[in-house]
């Protein structure tokens, strides 16, 4: 059983985000980076499945050398080896293409990743990887059980759940509660230093999209508390101050 988990290297969810170069680029200065939270769930489930099947678990990241601490954390959590495609990820297609290139050579039985990354939240990569490899892709997957070559999945759909059966290989975009996210243990952290981390160069890909600028949401205004028995005052303020009525 060969499992691949693709991880994004994203700013910690509590980070204060700002932009540089005319709002074109994220200001990475002082930011702390982590494994994408959805990817973390995928990784946790993959570790369990690897332990259950006695297979091999590879993690992959498309990123420059600065993502290596994040990759090593995935190794500490339990991946057996890692591959870094040495490129600044530009868009979902670029990333998916690089993943598919690696996957073609390695014949993974299962490719897991988060339902979306928590930086750009595109949620497209799993679908594209499936397409590029010619195998099914399912998202968002909340439960994944293996029985030989067949997997049972639960998928969240509007107002309910869908259960499906699917044969290996396939791609899944995962979310909680597929597994409880894992904290690396000290032994795992010490072992991560010596696990293989292979760096491969990217293949050229046509650039399909380009982000031209970013805009931050307007700053939150001050909050005013109006006692429950002063409804009239509330209405007045909504008219005159908030100007929403």
């Amino acid at each position, binding site marked *: 059983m060969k499992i691949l988990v693709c991880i994004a290297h994203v700013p910690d969810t509590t980070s204060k985000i700002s932009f540089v170069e005319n709002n074109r680029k994220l200001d990475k200065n002082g930011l702390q980076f982590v494994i994408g939270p959805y990817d973390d769930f995928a990784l946790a489930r993959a570790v369990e499945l690897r332990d259950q099947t006695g297979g091999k678990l590879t993690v992959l990241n498309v990123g420059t050398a600065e993502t290596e*601490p994040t990759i*090593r*954390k995935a190794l*500490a959590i339990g991946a057996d080896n890692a591959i870094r495609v040495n490129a600044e990820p530009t868009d979902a297609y670029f990333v998916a293409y690089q993943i598919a290139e690696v996957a073609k050579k390695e014949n993974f039985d299962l490719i897991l990743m988060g339902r979306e990354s928590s930086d750009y939240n595109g949620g497209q990569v799993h679908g594209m990887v499936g397409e590029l490899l010619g195998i099914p892709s399912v998202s968002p997957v909340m439960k994944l059980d293996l029985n030989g070559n067949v997997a049972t999945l639960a998928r969240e759909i509007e107002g309910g759940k869908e259960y499906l059966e699917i044969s290996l290989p396939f791609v899944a975009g995962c979310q909680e509660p597929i597994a409880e996210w894992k*904290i*690396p*243990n*000290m*032994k795992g*952290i*010490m072992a*991560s*230093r010596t696990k293989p981390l292979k760096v491969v160069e990217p293949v050229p890909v046509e650039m399909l999209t380009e982000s031209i600028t970013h805009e931050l949401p307007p700053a939150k205004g001050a909050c005013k508390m109006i006692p429950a028995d002063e409804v009239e005052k509330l209405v007045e303020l909504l008219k005159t101050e908030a100007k929403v009525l």
Partner: protein
Amino acid sequence: MQTVEQKELIKGGEFLIKDVNSAQIFIQEEFTEEQAMMAQACLDFLNKEIEPRLEEIDQAKSPELMRNLVKKAGELGLLATAVPAEYEGLGMSFNTSMLLADYVGMAHSFAVAFSAHTGIGTLPIVYYGNEEQKRKYLPKLASGEWISCYCLTEPDSGSDANSGKTRATLSAEGKHYIINGQKMWITNAGFADIFIVFAKIDDDKNLSAFIVEKGFGGITMNEPEKKLGIKGSDTRQVFFNDCHVPVENLLSERGNGFKIAVNILNIGRIKLAASCNGAAKKALEHSVRYAKERKQFNTAIANFGAIKEKIAKQATLIFVNESAYYRAGQNIDDCIEAFIANGMPEAEAKLKAFEQFAIECAIMKVFGSETLDYCVDEAVQIFGGMGYSAEAPVERCYRDSRINRIFEGTNEINRMLCVGTIVKRAMKGELNLMPAIMEVQKELMSGGGDLRFDNSFMSYEKAVLKNLKKATLMTAGAAVQKFTTNLQNEQEVMLNLADMLIQVYTLESAILRLEKLASIRGQASVAIQADMVRSFLLEAADTVYISGKNAINAFAEGEMHKALMGSLRKLSRTEAYNAKEARRRIADFILEQGKYPF
């Protein structure tokens, strides 16, 4: 000037008489990616398992909750850091385990249970156990399968730890020691499997130590003590009634117990400074959040100078504290390595290294616990009336802080210990204190002692530090000359001298950290750290002056008094510096970051 790259081995207590180069010290900014990952894992664990349960833990309905949480920490390897790899531990450096202690420190009662188990509960076996004892106990203690506690204190034997009445007598068949006696204030007793028990064999003058399994029988205990703080930490009286301990469970040799107790506490002391820092950072974070939210007079209270000053002082003490204990921690690690390289067995090397740095360990125990007490006190003040409410998080911070000045040797005991040890080493010729004192006296007699510095970075701060060291040497020298061996009975003077030592050591550590940091990152990017060091310097100089004055007033009269006070004034002099503006810059930075960011 050339910087010495090669590490020269530093001796404990030498800081008072030797200039240290910043290249020789470790600063926490040098922790590796791996160590940072360990710290983050520890933080993730605390946020996931402990933080949401603080209230439940403090209600202490069943000892099982804490036991399970400690065990969960064990599953992550957090209990195994100091246990050698041969015994299924991780054998990490001392500074790594301090880093983890720093994080765990934010976890209130859990932190106490954690450090009692990993420290005083496990280390006696790590350092003094024989091969069989280590094989039998350490793997299970490292994993958390077994939890340990440390039974030294008795109702009539606290600070005077060697005066315990608990007795061990050899059984008629010669195969067991039979222990009888009463222990008090035993952390983790309610759920411990292993008890490290100190008792006197027959009529021995000195304690011996035993590894006692709960299953040996003859152990009963009271309900948990009802306490001011750390309410979730299980603390009990433990009674030994004909508890049969196999002779092979004697730890080390007969009569060696007091030495074990002292050395193990020594290690715990400096780690306590680290765990106090974690707790202090948390109190600061609460303070910052509330100061930004709370509005009075139409503005956030964070905008008031009075509040900024508190936030800046909290952050500054935290910065100074961590500069000092990580510096000492690395000195200890280096010393261990050097001893091992010279062929000393590992356990012995570690013990000798900690003994070597007993002065620094005692200094850090005091400074760390008092840093925390300052931080929680001002946190409550920043919260105003809300700070007094059990609903506010700082109320727990305040209650839980207080114990740190009491256990692991009270701060009085530790203050006297650091002065007593320095004097003892000087008498034995292990520390060249007397020549240094004589040199200072000579210099002062010939009108020296002026601040000498130039415009280079940190030159002024180092000049002040140098003079504060001289002030300490001068006062200590005069006190020793006056009281000779009777100095130990002049406790008030000992406490004054301890306060001078503490300021000198911590100030020096902060200066060296700043200097090293500036050499790595450039001066421009350490402006806030520089503000912290410089505003602390002002306070340190004042404390040295006041402590010195109190000491001198206690033993000098007439011309002698006049001369000493004149020199003290000169040696504790500082240049004009606007600490108010510096503290505003510090506070503004911390407020913007939302927490202690270094």
